[in-house]
């Protein structure tokens, strides 16, 4: 028995808060006309996703997600917004027509319905036994033993992307 009334509802309430932040932030990111608000929506969705990761038994990934998405991705996009002028054109100035938006909504709705059907009716098997607890220690051991090749490849991808970003940005500078 709990000594404090309503304590049972605290955890679902926090969960709903994070779920609402995820979906609401994503909606803000997509529907607003000003890109800076869109970035704020992305940050809000990232906080919600980090909370989801916490509920999914992975506080480590929640921390890393906030670190990378809000600390790196959003800040980098804000830098790009300061260097370019990325606001969406007004609805009067030749924006997308209504049929285009409706088509996008139909595609997205179909995708959502199909995925929902697969998720709810799929034959998901819960394993009888867990071979590890998924702690940070286990993640570290997996990174350098079973997943070491993937780790090397992701390191190569990051190196190539840094060099490619430098080359692309520098080339535009030369042509000016």
């Amino acid at each position, binding site marked *: 028995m709990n000594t404090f009334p309503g304590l049972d509802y605290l*955890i*679902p309430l926090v*969960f709903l808060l994070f779920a609402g932040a*995820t*979906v609401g932030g*994503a909606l803000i*990111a*997509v529907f607003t006309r000003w*890109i800076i608000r*869109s970035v704020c929506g*992305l940050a809000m*969705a990232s906080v919600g996703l980090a909370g*989801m*990761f916490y509920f999914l*038994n*992975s506080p*480590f990934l929640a921390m*890393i*997600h906030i670190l*990378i*998405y809000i600390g*790196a*991705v959003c800040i*980098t*996009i804000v830098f*790009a*917004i300061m260097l*370019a*002028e*990325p606001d*969406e*054109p007004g609805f009067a100035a030749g924006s*997308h027509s209504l049929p285009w*938006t409706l088509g*996008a909504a139909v*595609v*997205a709705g179909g*995708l959502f319905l199909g*995925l*929902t059907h697969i*998720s709810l009716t799929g034959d*998901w098997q819960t394993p009888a036994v*867990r*071979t*590890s607890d*998924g702690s940070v220690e*286990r993640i570290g051991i*997996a*990174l350098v033993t079973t*997943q070491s090749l993937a780790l090397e490849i*992701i390191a190569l*991808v*990051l190196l190539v*992307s*840094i060099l*490619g*970003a430098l080359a*692309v*940005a520098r080339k*535009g500078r030369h042509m000016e």
Partner: protein
Amino acid sequence: MNMLAWPQNPSVYLLIAALLLAIGVFGLLRRQTLVGMLISGELIFGAAMLNMMAVNRFFVEDPATGQVFVLFIMGLSAAEVAIALSIVIAVYRNYRSIQTRELSEMKG
């Protein structure tokens, strides 16, 4: 459906991931600037990560595997953002605009 059991129900996470993917695809089709499309792409990455984590938490024997995969997805999305934003800067230098409507010609 019992609301108290939602944090322990895999369907809730899978539905949120599907919704996030649908919102991201909708934004990718609707947005008219490169930065807006990039943000929608990040939402799609987020949907993939949430789906991976949900399956990892409820249906996988070794929960470390999915977390490692999500780490790799984060690395890929960070690399994608770096490349895409440098392309955005280069395009803006040449065209003085990053609206997709005006980027209709290519030159090697």
